């Protein structure tokens, strides 16, 4: 077998193994629930029979392995069980019903951010590296260092103050609905997307700059310069092929970071996404919903990192021979 194919397959296997272990951890969290949990979900008025039935439905009487297999089997078919909320009134809602439309909203927000942030960060990073130590470089660096230190909600509220209340350019609430048209949707999502962009551009730009500077310092680039290759050719023909791996890594790493940043920003702008759903579920201790959201976030995070790993192996044959 070709060594690249073998390494990629190994990585894929490792990624699947991690996903499996993570799903076990997320599932087993249910084991640590305090004993009176059924009573607190169903309310004080619940009869002992209903409590017993609820415990049976959660499967607390069966061995954990059986329950895990049932749960993961359901998850693989897109069935996360039913939510705890509304149980006391006898109304049940499928977790998937809650998550489905919100997942689409979250992906829309993340996608919109990525479309703005990735090209912007790469341009800023590469130009800052090329004109290193110039005034431009220092200004970009100082700005990004400051935005890195800001909590997401600080950036969000400053943007709301300036762009939504002082100058009413964008709406401060992004309560999109399923019926919202695409143009309206983009308009309403502008502020959350802008907040996330500011947060991740800083990271991405600094990492790109460091990667490119690192590369430009290597001897073969100096050689190319010394033999008189033009500046643009040095970048395009000599530097770029080796720069792909670090750049793709930077992008994937930051998109994975986006997964986390999205939670706070969705809450600030009351954006109906998975992050907000998760926070609500945490406050009401609606465990099936929390588990489903955690699994979705963790899986996205792991898959993005896995993707970055594979791209860097494919583009950089040196990684095939670890020391």
């Amino acid at each position: 077998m070709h060594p690249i194919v073998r390494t990629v397959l190994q990585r894929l296997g490792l990624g699947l193994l991690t996903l499996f272990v993570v799903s076990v951890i997320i599932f087993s969290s249910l084991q640590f629930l305090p004993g009176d949990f059924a009573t607190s979900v169903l309310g004080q008025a619940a009869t002992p029979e209903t409590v017993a039935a609820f415990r049976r439905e959660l499967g607390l009487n069966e061995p954990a392995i059986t329950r895990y297999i049932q749960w993961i089997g359901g998850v693989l078919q897109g069935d996360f069980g039913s939510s705890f909320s509304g149980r006391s009134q006898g109304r049940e809602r499928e977790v998937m019903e809650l998550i489905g439309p919100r997942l689409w909203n979250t992906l829309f927000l993340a996608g919109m951010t990525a479309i703005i942030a990735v090209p912007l960060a790469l341009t800023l990073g590469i130009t800052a590296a090329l004109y290193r130590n110039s005034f431009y470089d220092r200004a970009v660096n100082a700005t990004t260092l400051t935005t890195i230190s800001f909590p997401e909600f600080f950036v969000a509220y400053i943007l709301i103050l300036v762009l939504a209340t002082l100058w009413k350019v964008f709406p401060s609430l992004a309560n999109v609905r399923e019926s919202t048209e695409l143009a309206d949707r983009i308009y309403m999502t502008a502020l959350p997307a802008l907040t996330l962009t500011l947060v991740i551009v800083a990271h991405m730009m600094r990492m790109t700059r460091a990667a490119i500077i690192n590369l430009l310092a290597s001897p073969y680039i100096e050689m190319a310069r010394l033999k008189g290759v033009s500046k643009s050719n040095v970048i395009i023909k000599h530097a770029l092929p080796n720069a792909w791996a670090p750049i793709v890594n930077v992008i994937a790493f930051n998109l994975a970071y986006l997964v986390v940043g999205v939670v706070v920003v969705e809450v600030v702008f009351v954006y109906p996404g998975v992050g907000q759903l998760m926070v609500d579920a945490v406050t009401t201790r609606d465990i099936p919903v929390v588990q489903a959201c955690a699994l979705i976030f963790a899986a996205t995070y792991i898959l993005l990192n896995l993707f970055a790993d594979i791209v860097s192996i494919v583009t950089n044959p040196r990684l095939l021979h670890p020391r």
Partner: protein
Amino acid sequence: MSTDDQTYSAAGEVASVAERRTWWDRTWRNLKKAPVTAWFGMIVISFYFILAVFAPLLAPYGESQIFDTPYAPWSSEFWFGTDQLGRDVLSRLIYGARNTIGIAVATTALSFLIGGSLGVMAAINRSWLDQGLSRFVDVLMAIPSLIFSLMLLSIFGSNVINLIIIIAVLDATRVFRLARAVSLNVVVMDYVEASRLRGESLGWVMRRDILPNILPPMVAEFGLRFCFVFLTIASLSFLGVGIQPPTADWGSMVRENAQLISFAEYDMKAAMTPLLPAGAIALLTVAVNFVVDWFLHKTSGIRDEK
């Protein structure tokens, strides 16, 4: 010691040429060379420190003392107005320094205790312990820590003790990685082998041989981890699942006063109220970052860029 002036004393000779500098003297000389940004950072940090320690003396009113008018405007009586229940915002900001920073410091210290000792131990042991811990850490790091802590908080319930333990354990994974990596370079030294052959205990080797040698990177990491923990706790409190009311805390203060921002046209000052605690958080993180940057530059010359 002989006081006979016939004997030659090297110490006496040298002392007359150049006085040995005291610890304070050396620190002062180092500080004088520090860049403006580091000075700015240190001044901000000491300001916060004083606020946190002397909070009851500095705050004009009590932490959860309630007055008649909720959302009172800025005035000489209430400098930054009152919040949704009629509590003085300035007093809560000052008490918030104590609570928010105190909890973040406690969490970071705990995570260094766990992660640091396990990391050094794994580096010395290098067998099943190292393998087991490293793989376990790999898995924990595969889940984004904000998501993981949200999940754990929903199970164990949100209170300060749970918050500290959960975030400390999740953050200890990063500390473990660094502690293990830097001590691996120290463990192979001859003097470590010598003390192990001498029969010193594991704790002795960790404390006397390895700890002094890994201290500079660990101190710098402490600053960076503190920022990260501080921001995570602030975010969790902002989301309403971290530090619970009535404890004054900057993250939850932002959330409680957030609606005021929509009145910016009528009362600009009131709209600034939610930005004050958020700005306090941002200022502290910037300050710590500046100091860490200078410290890293000074101790090892390692920086994330060339």
